[in-house]
C-alpha cells in the first residue's frame, strides 16, 4: 500500500473543498480479545463516496458503527467538519450533542430496514420523525416534505399512510433512505444498502442512490461485499480483511489493478463485476 493511494487523485482533489469532512484516526474497536477493526485511518472529502469492501467478519460494519457514532471505538478518534466548526472527536462530545449530529449532520441507512424504520408508524411518520425531532410543529409542512421525499425515492406518494410492513423490501430500503435524507445531512453511512434485494431492485436502488448522491452533493461511506455496487457508486475504495485495511485507492484502480493478494483474490472471485 503506497502512500500515494491514501490521498485522492489530483483530478478529484480539484473538485473537493480543501478540508476533509470526516477524518478517522487509527480507529480501533476490540470486542474483548476479538478484533472488530484495527487502526483504520482515512479522510473523506465533501461530496466523495468511499466504499468499504471485504468479506463477512472483516470489520466493515464495526467500522461503520464507530464512524457513525453508534459504537464507541476502543481507541482512536473520528473528526467531523460541522458547519459550525471542526469537531476533533465526535466521541469527546456529550451524548446529547452526538445524537443531535447523528440526526442532522449525518444519517445511517441500515442493512435491515427494520433497524432503521419504525415499523408500526406510517411512511409519512417515518420520514417526518427527523423533522419533528428538530422541532418542526406544522403538520401540513411535515406532510408536504414527506410527500416530496416519497416521490424522490420513487415510492407512490399515495402510500404515505401505509406502514413499512406493507412495503416490499426494496421500498422499505428506499423509505429508509428518504427518512435519513429529509433532514439534509452532508454525510450518509450505508451498510449493505442492496443486501437482500433481488438484482433488478438492486439496480433501481443503485440508480436512485447515484442520482441522490450526485444531486445533493452528499458524501457517503458505503459498506458492501458486492464489488459491483462498489464499482457503480464509489469514488474510492478501502479493502478490509481481519479488521485491517489491506488496500486503499481509487475504485477503478483497486478493482482493475489490485495490489494486495487478498484484493486480487476478492476481484478474481467475482463472476462478472
Amino acid at each position, binding site marked *: 500500500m503506497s502512500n500515494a493511494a491514501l490521498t485522492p487523485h489530483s483530478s478529484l482533489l480539484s473538485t473537493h473543498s480543501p478540508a476533509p469532512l470526516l477524518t478517522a484516526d487509527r480507529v480501533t474497536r476490540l470486542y474483548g480479545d476479538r478484533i472488530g477493526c484495527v487502526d483504520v485511518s482515512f479522510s473523506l472529502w465533501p461530496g466523495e463516496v468511499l466504499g468499504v469492501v471485504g468479506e463477512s467478519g472483516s470489520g466493515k460494519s464495526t467500522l461503520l458503527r464507530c464512524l457513525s457514532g453508534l459504537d464507541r471505538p476502543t481507541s482512536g478518534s473520528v473528526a467531523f467538519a460541522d458547519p459550525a466548526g471542526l469537531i476533533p472527536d465526535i466521541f469527546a462530545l456529550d*451524548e*446529547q450533542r452526538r*445524537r443531535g449530529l447523528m440526526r442532522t449532520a449525518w444519517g445511517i441507512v441500515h442493512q435491515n430496514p427494520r433497524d432503521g424504520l*419504525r415499523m408500526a*408508524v*406510517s411512511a*409519512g*411518520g417515518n420520514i*417526518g*420523525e*427527523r423533522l*419533528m*425531532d*428538530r422541532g418542526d*410543529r*406544522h*403538520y*401540513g409542512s*411535515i*406532510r408536504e416534505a414527506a410527500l416530496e421525499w416519497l416521490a424522490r425515492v420513487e415510492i407512490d406518494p399515495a402510500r*404515505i*399512510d401505509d406502514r413499512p410492513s406493507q412495503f416490499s423490501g426494496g421500498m422499505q430500503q428506499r423509505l429508509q433512505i428518504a427518512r435519513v435524507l429529509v433532514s439534509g445531512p452532508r454525510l450518509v453511512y450505508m451498510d449493505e444498502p442492496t443486501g437482500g434485494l433481488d438484482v433488478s431492485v438492486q439496480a433501481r436502488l443503485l440508480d436512485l442512490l447515484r442520482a441522490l448522491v450526485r444531486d445533493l452533493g452528499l458524501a457517503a461511506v458505503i459498506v458492501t461485499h458486492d464489488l459491483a455496487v462498489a464499482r457503480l457508486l464509489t469514488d474510492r475504495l478501502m479493502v478490509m480483511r481481519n479488521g485491517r485495511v489491506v488496500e486503499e485507492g481509487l475504485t477503478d484502480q483497486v478493482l482493475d489493478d489490485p495490489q494486495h493478494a487478498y484484493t486480487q483474490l476478492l476481484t478474481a472471485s467475482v463472476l462478472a463485476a
Partner: protein
Amino acid sequence: MQKTVTSPLPPRDEAYNFAYLDEATKRMVRRALLKAVAVPGYQVPFGSREMPLARGWGTGGIQVTAAVIGPDDTLKVIDQGADDTTNAVSIRRFFARVAGVATTEATADATIIQTRHRIPEAPLEAGQILVYQVPQPEPLRKLESSEAETRKMHAWGDYGPMYVRLYEDIARFGHVATTYSYPVLVNGRYVMSPSPIPKFDNPKMHMSAALQLFGAGREKRIYAIPPWTEVKSLDFEDHPFEVQKWDEPCALCDAADSYLDEVITDDLGGRMFVCSDTHYCEGRRDAGHRGRLLGTDAGRALTRNEE
C-alpha cells in the same frame, strides 16, 4: 346539602399511626414531593410502600395524600368523577379510619381532593391540593420501553417521537384521536402524562390556583404541577389541541359545559349523557336546573334518593 346515603364512616383507629404511614416514610414522600414541586413535570422516584390495597388501585395517590394530610384537612375522593364508586368510598373510609379527618363530597369544601380519571368541574381554588392516582407516569413509555432511554429523552427534551404519535393520529383519523392521558408540556420543559383524565380536563391544569400532585405507586414515581404553572397540551400549529364536545347537554342537570358519560338505558339503543362529576350535577339540580330525563325511570336510576 347532599342527599347522599353513605354508610357511616368508621371512627379514627388509634392503633394506626396518623394517616397510616410511619413518620419516616411520610418524610421520604414529602422530600420527593418538594423536589417534584421544584421541578414541575419531572418524575421523582420514591420508595413506594405496600399499602392495604392492591397496586393499581390508587396506592400512589394514597401515599401522597397520607404525606400531605393533616388533622384539620377535609378530604374528597372521586373515581371517574363520582364520589360514590367503590374505590372512592373505600379510600374515603380508609382516611377516616386512619387519620380521623373530615370527608366531603363538595369540591369547594375540600382541602385535599384525591382523584382518579377526572378533575372536578368546579374551578379549584388557592390552598386546595389535587392528588392524582397515576397508573403509568411515563408519557413516552408506549414509544420507548427502556427507562434509561426515556430518562435521557426527558433530560434532553427529546420529544420528537411524541409528535410522531400525534402525526400518526392525524394521518389516520384526521384529528388527534388520543382522548385520555393526553400528553402535556409543563412549564415549557417536561412532557408529562396527566394520568388517565380525559383531554377535556387538560385545560383545567393550566394556570390552576391549586397544587396538583401525582402519585404512581406501582411505578414508584411522584410528580407535580405547582399553582399558576403553564400546562400546554401538545399539538401541531395547524392542528391545535381540542377537547371533546357533545351534541346534547346533561340529561339530568342540563349542563352544557361539563364532561359527559354515556349511559346505556335499555337494549333498544336508548342512551343518555350525564355529568361524570356527580357532585357538580347534584349541585346544579339543587339550584333548579332540570335535564331532559330528570324524573323519568332512567333519570331516577342515576339520581340516588332524590325526588
